[in-house]
């Protein structure tokens, strides 16, 4: 099985090298590619030095476009499985390896969930702010309702997928709310989507603050995006 592990990264010069070596250690035999989403720091240079392939978007295009770049590349170069983890060091590569196993066992798309249950009692559960938690709850309620399948962590960017799912996403992938909308898209297209409990780390570098207003705005946006998604024609993958 030809495997690609890709890491979408935007200005992650502090963590990118560690993420690459983590991926190399835990997913042996996979090619590693960093999708640099218009970074203005040394992310691309460090990734290249660490021996990873680097796809540099000439300007920031958003996380959706970065994922899609990797899917298009993977399909063109005959990769059968893609694993993906964030460039900020929140996603342990050992967990991504488990997602890849799920895809090898037959899932089309495996999504790592922080909230699906505690996988390792020694590691404290993933913590986040109150506003964020409410937002997460709403997202999963909305996505679960629209797909009639339970999803607990709809914004998770820790995933693994096969060619079938890559084809679907290479064709059309939301540029703004990629993670959430892609779940609906995959289920509607009849793919086998599996949520796998994983553990993630708190952010090492950078910040990710989402206040209540922003949270409310995202919930509203998700609602609209999912409603429109329900009305879209189904993409059928044979």
């Amino acid at each position, binding site marked *: 099985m030809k495997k690609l592990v890709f890491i979408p990264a935007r200005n992650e010069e502090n963590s990118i090298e560690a993420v690459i070596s983590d991926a190399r250690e835990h997913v042996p035999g996979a090619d590693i*590619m960093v*999708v*640099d989403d218009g970074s203005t720091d040394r992310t691309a240079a460090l990734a*290249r030095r660490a021996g990873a*392939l*680097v*796809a*540099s*978007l*000439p*300007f920031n*295009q958003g996380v959706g*476009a970065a994922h*899609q*770049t990797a899917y*298009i*590349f993977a399909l*063109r170069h005959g990769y059968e499985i893609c694993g993906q983890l964030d460039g900020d060091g929140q996603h342990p590569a050992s967990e991504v390896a488990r997602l890849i196993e799920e895809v090898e066992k037959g899932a089309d798309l495996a999504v790592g969930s922080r909230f699906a249950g505690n996988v390792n009692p020694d590691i404290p559960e993933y913590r986040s702010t109150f506003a964020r938690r409410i937002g997460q709850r709403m997202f999963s309620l909305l996505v679960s309702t629209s797909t009639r399948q339970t999803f607990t962590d709809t914004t998770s960017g820790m995933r693994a997928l096969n060619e079938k799912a890559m084809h679907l996403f290479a064709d059309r992938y939301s*540029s703004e709310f990629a993670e959430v909308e892609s779940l609906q898209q995959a289920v509607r297209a009849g793919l086998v989507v599996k949520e796998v409990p994983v553990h993630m780390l708190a952010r090492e570098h950078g910040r990710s603050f989402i206040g209540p207003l922003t949270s409310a705005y995202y919930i509203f946006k998700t609602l609209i995006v999912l409603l429109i998604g329900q009305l879209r024609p189904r993409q059928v993958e044979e």
Partner: protein
Amino acid sequence: MTRLLAESEPVVRLTPQARILAAVLAIAFMLLILDLIRRDKLLERYSIVWFLLGIGMLLGAIFPVALEWLAKAMGVRDVTIALFSVTLLILLALSLNFSVIASRQSKQITRLAQQSAIDGVEEQTEEVEGRDR
């Protein structure tokens, strides 16, 4: 019957001053469009619709009968209101059209950026293969 007819006649018409002003503005507007095309700030493709709008404005100023006919057709007694509503609708349609164009272009830009990123990776792998040989 006579009353119905009387009511269907527009009661508020454009004053001569307003007509002169409108004609002057329409001509100035079309000159501006011409100048923008001449200085390469506007593609011809996007200018035609603005020209049509300018001509429409000019015609309305020269032949007020056309506007009164329009008001009558809309069932409005005030020519200015008919004018406003039509203008508003045209602008609404135009801006929606531009949003569609902007969305399409932004999608094209993304595809282009992705292609350029992928080209970069392919160059990188060729370099590596070259070194191995």
